[in-house]
């Protein structure tokens, strides 16, 4: 690939650093999925409307489709893959599994990351906070009711440990 228009950047993703050559217009989502094989963050709209691409940047949920890769330099980027401890699920993932908080599962990584972001800032959220925090993540299957249950359960699980 022609590297004359490429920028050299370093991204810190799931605790590891990646030196990359990117076109300045490439989104963080494109780099995660198509260059690094981190495909948990999903592509749904590329317009910041659905939240399927949600990742955490410095503990805050961000739409990876609306973030240029070059903008993401210097941030701590966390994707769903980074929530795992090896092959073990994190509390929030366990709660999604137990409560069947998904159907097709395509929005699920984004839902989980949005919920993770919430629980990092608000460990014991109210129902209202849960709804607000997930309102930027569409679920066309409509699994919301179970998602709310899962987030409440995850808050409990995290407080226990």
């Amino acid at each position: 690939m022609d590297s004359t228009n490429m920028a050299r950047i370093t991204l810190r993703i799931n605790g590891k650093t990646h030196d990359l050559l990117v076109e300045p217009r490439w989104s963080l989502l494109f780099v995660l999925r198509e260059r690094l094989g981190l495909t948990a963050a999903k592509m749904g709209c590329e317009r910041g409307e659905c939240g399927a691409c949600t990742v955490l940047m410095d503990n805050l949920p961000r739409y990876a489709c609306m973030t240029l890769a070059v903008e993401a330099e210097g941030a701590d980027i966390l994707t769903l893959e980074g929530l795992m401890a090896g092959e073990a699920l994190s509390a929030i993932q366990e709660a999604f599994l137990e409560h069947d908080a998904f159907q097709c599962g395509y929005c699920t990584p984004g839902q989980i990351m949005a919920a993770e972001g919430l629980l990092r800032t608000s460990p014991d959220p109210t129902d209202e906070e849960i709804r607000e925090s997930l309102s930027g993540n569409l679920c066309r299957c409509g699994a919301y009711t179970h998602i709310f249950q899962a987030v409440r359960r995850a808050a409990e699980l995290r407080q226990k440990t």
Partner: protein
Amino acid sequence: MTKKEEKGAYYTEGLSVPETPEPGEVPKPWSKPQVIGTWRPRVDAYERVSGSAIYPSDLNLPHMLYGSILRCPYPHARIRKVNMSRAERLPGVRAVINANTPEADLYWSYSKEVRTKLFDPQCRYEGETIAAVAAETPYQAWDAVRVIHVEYDVLPFVADERKALQPGAPQIHDGGNLVGPKETYSRGNVEVGFVQADVVLEERYRTECELHTPLELHGCVAHWEGDLLIIHESTQGVYGVQSKVAQVLGLPLSKVRVIGHYLGGGFGSKLQPGKYTVIAALLAKKAARPVKLFLTREETYLCAGNRPPANMRLKAGVKKDGTLTALDFSVTGTGGAYPAGGTDLVDWLIRDLYTCPNVRTEKTDVYINAGPARPFRAPGHPQGSWALEQMLDALAEAIEMDPIELRLKNVPSYSQARQGNPPYTATGLKECLEQGAHVFRWNERRKQIKDAEQKGPLRRGVGVASCLWNGGGGGPPSTVTVTLFSDGTVNLNMGASDIGTGTKTVMAMVAAEELGVRMNMIRIEHADTGTTQYATPSGGSKTVPTEAPAVRSAAIHVKQQLLQMAADDLQTDSSCLRLGKGEVFCEKEASKRIRVSDISGLKRQGVVIGVGYRGPNPAGKVINPFAAQFCEVEVNIKTGEVKILEFLGANESGRVMNHLTYNNQVYGGIAMGIGFAMTEVRILDANRTGKMVNKNWHDYKLPTALDMPRHMESLPIDIPDPEANITGAKGLGEPVTIPTAAAIANAVYHATGIRVRETVLNPTRLSILFSEHSKEK
């Protein structure tokens, strides 16, 4: 490793196993199932929550290119010339195709009569396919698409189905804008019925065009291994994709392998492949490299199907005692620019849901310059329900009867609309209404609302609507194989997709029930035309009632062979043998027992393979699921805002297979129904440009977390239907969304006295209706 999991053991939970029927015998219904009917997380939940599930759009093959498609920006145009030379010269571009590419000179059929070129010079809708590019990155592919130069003759258009038949309307096809002759149905005599009625009401209703917008975009990764085409498609049915692609490309079925292990939602829009699937294959061939081609979100709004708008008129007659005497219904709709079932099944509920001797319906399907429809969760039904269920409510009020009582008065035991009036194998409509009303506390709530003092702008109301779904029984063909390994673990092989309903989980439960094997010891191979058995696409609430009986049959076939093998080892007759708790044992002679993993025939063969076929449905009977939904709303009569406080869905879909995923379906169906009622509308700029103006999720609103009712309840009416099939289960995915919109409209009427006869039921529309209402006063 716990003791239970010792190697070589048959992986049981100490489960007893249902009796094994003799070959050729019809298995009895499960009397005390141990796995079926319980609450089970999904067998693929780990993959889905860990990010390790690979959806087709996640796939990244070595040396893969990215495809994108140039689409017509006009609703109606003729292409004069396409110049691709600039695009071909851009960096990273590896293949460009259009109508002039010899390999792309193919036909695409919409029906038996109507077909066009794959790249047709006549563009009849915004978003029609003109050319396509494959490049090293999607960014470069889009760069190339943008510099393809097209000269168009822009033609006059019609983008409103209500104007398509007006004199002087632009003609979309040579034969005019009528898709076919008007479809009519009639029984009895509606004129006589109206004379017999004490009350006759007539109203007009409209539902807006709704878009599926599943979260995963439509598309595939296509690549060739010599003359074998391999397609990883986001699809509800791999075999459906295989046959269409093979037909368009003129390939033998054996040379098209379609794989679709996961998909991010479809709702009917992924029952079929698109032109995009064939285009990906052509680009891959031309570039001799794999091509990933997924549509953009905007493209999916234009060309991946929709639920057509419905313009309905319903006249109904009722006696004071609640007897329906006549229903007279007509609808005009559109499947867009090509035949696509623009009015399919919109009249079905009027014809079949309630007892009524005199019924007449008429359907008019017209062409407009808009993207073709595709089946959308319960085609036609939510539209017809919007009219019928609001009318029932109005009739009940007019005769001063409770709306539930009126419905109960008219519950049929047979299908009136089908030839010969065949009975339903079972109907739980009465139970859905009665038990739903009881759990919802319908009477108490109505009384509370009646007695409450109306202060301030907030008004509460409750509403009900019920339904059946025209399908939901499933049926042949389907083949499933179950392989039992020598350690007693199982491989289940089926062609069906799991579209998010939990199909794989239910099938694992069926195999676990029959074989006594723990669910996590069952591996499922599915949705691959190269390696898995034949299945029809997953949709129409037919996957569980189609596949589960085939899985059960295959598991029973395994058991029968196993018992025969054990009989040889034990030197006894297989008829006295039973399988259970990891052993085969003789009921009469306690000493005659052998562990499954010790059976020499199994060891010798390595595996036992059972084959199951879906048998025919009972002749002369109809298998339909039924439902009723109840809701309470709070309406602000100053702002027109509607808050849905509670929803209850009561469903009779035969046996409950997995309680957990069942409830999830119910809530999801209600969520989708809320969108249909309150926020979702395709807006075409019908006067000036004919273009869709809200082709994104910002302007086309789906319900979000904030729109969900505070309280959702699922009430399964668990009546196993042994006549339906050998599992007793019927489909659930469609009935859960059919009555939602009408229940909301009825609740809003109860709260405010305002009938909202057109979707979308939003603050803007309500405010207008409130102000008209206060002027009338």
